[in-house]
């Protein structure tokens, strides 16, 4: 009867822990609605790859030799070899973004830049906790609040912690409505949260909407060439949307491509959630550092808005700075909810959406710039 029991007798305690992690991710996805499109495939994948002698990863079978597993193959070809999956997802994301609110109020672009502070703060914190520079940078990029960017950067930097980083990135994105209000309230006064901002949108021409993605790609390419794959694919998706002559391709990018890649990305990334790589005390540190990154992103954005207010006659509500992170549209909604809570007639949503969209550009830029700086430093 040994052949029936060989599977269950070879289960290890770390693998049992990973089943619990997998079930927890599935629970959070289904019951709480936290990023279900990613957390559910990742949770199921975590169970799949941790079954003893799992057929979804490569195995050496007695009498047969090497066998290939589908999840390992997907990971090696779709992420490790080419970073294709996260990059392809950017085409879909770009096609979904409407830069209109940002272009009608371009000053909001600055908040996207300021709210990337948490990334760099976390890199230093991770170094102090003993992580190597490439690993610290990979952990810091959780603060980009952008799952595909986190996966891509940690993969290019050959981080050993790609699994925990992906889990932290997606979990905290889902937890933005819980994390951000606490951070915002900690660094703002009630008087600041009551600041009103009239919304006077400037009409945005179609010409500008077409030129914008091309110009951003060229400028980003000149300053941070490593960011071109990230920014370029994001802006390519946006150009498909805005050009007006490729409606079917834009629709395919927004729906079919984005859904298909998201589905594959979640289950593929679970390859890095094998017990031997995931069940370490580093995972707990990474989850903690991810929280630090999100908090300091928020603080960075808010403090920058306060700094700008020193020079402006028409004050900006500092909460707008917090919307500069890439978690779209959760972050803008958080700011709007907080504003309404303080004063039911104070509507900041359109300003916050502008800053939030800017965060999407700045987060991919940050990813590229980190790759650029690290490759220069580690030369």
């Amino acid at each position, binding site marked *: 009867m040994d052949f029936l029991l060989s599977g269950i007798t070879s289960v290890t305690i770390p693998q049992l822990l990973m089943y619990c992690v997998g079930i927890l991710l599935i629970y959070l996805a289904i019951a709480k609605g936290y990023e279900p499109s990613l957390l559910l495939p990742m949770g199921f994948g975590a169970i799949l790859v941790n079954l003893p002698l799992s057929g979804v990863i490569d195995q050496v079978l007695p009498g047969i030799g090497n066998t290939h597993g589908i999840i390992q193959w997907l990971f090696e070809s779709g992420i490790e070899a080419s970073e294709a999956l996260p990059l392809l997802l950017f085409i879909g994301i770009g096609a979904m973004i409407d830069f209109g609110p940002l272009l009608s109020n*371009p000053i909001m672009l600055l908040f996207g830049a300021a709210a990337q502070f948490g*990334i760099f*703060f976390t890199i230093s914190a991770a170094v*102090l906790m003993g992580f190597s520079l490439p690993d610290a940078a990979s952990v810091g990029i959780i603060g980009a609040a952008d799952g595909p960017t986190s996966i891509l950067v940690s993969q290019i930097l050959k981080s050993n912690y790609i699994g925990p980083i992906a889990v932290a990135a997606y979990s905290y994105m889902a937890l933005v409505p819980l994390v951000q209000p606490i951070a915002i309230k900690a660094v703002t006064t009630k008087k600041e949260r009551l600041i009103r901002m009239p919304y006077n949108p400037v009409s945005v021409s179609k010409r500008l909407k077409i030129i914008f993605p091309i110009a951003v790609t060229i400028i980003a390419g000149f300053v941070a060439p490593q960011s071109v794959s990230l920014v370029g694919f994001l802006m390519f998706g946006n150009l498909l949307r805005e050009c007006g002559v490729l409606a079917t391709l834009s629709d395919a990018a927004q729906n079919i491509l984005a859904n298909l890649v998201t589905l594959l990305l979640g289950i593929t990334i679970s390859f890095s959630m094998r017990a031997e790589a995931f069940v370490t005390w580093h995972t707990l540190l990474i989850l903690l550092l991810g929280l630090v990154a999100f908090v300091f992103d928020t603080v960075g954005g808010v403090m920058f808005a306060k700094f700008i207010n020193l020079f402006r006659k028409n004050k900006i509500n500092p909460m707008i700075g917090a919307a500069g992170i890439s978690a779209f549209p959760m972050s803008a909604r958080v700011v709007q909810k907080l504003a309404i809570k303080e004063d039911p007639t104070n509507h900041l949503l359109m300003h916050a959406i502008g800053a939030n969209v800017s965060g999407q550009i700045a987060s991919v830029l940050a990813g590229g710039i980190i790759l650029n700086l690290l490759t220069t430093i580690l030369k």
Partner: protein
Amino acid sequence: MEERFLTSLDIMWKGMLSIFCVIIIITLLVMLFQWAEKKITTFIENKRQKKTE
């Protein structure tokens, strides 16, 4: 450790500066484009108005 920490601080200021540089250039370009577009539209409209007069 100390050297790595100093390098991370180096990455911090260079990274933030690079992001702000790119974003400020983009912001200025967008503002410039909107300003130019407005001027050109006004100029064309004025010209058209003069013609009809």
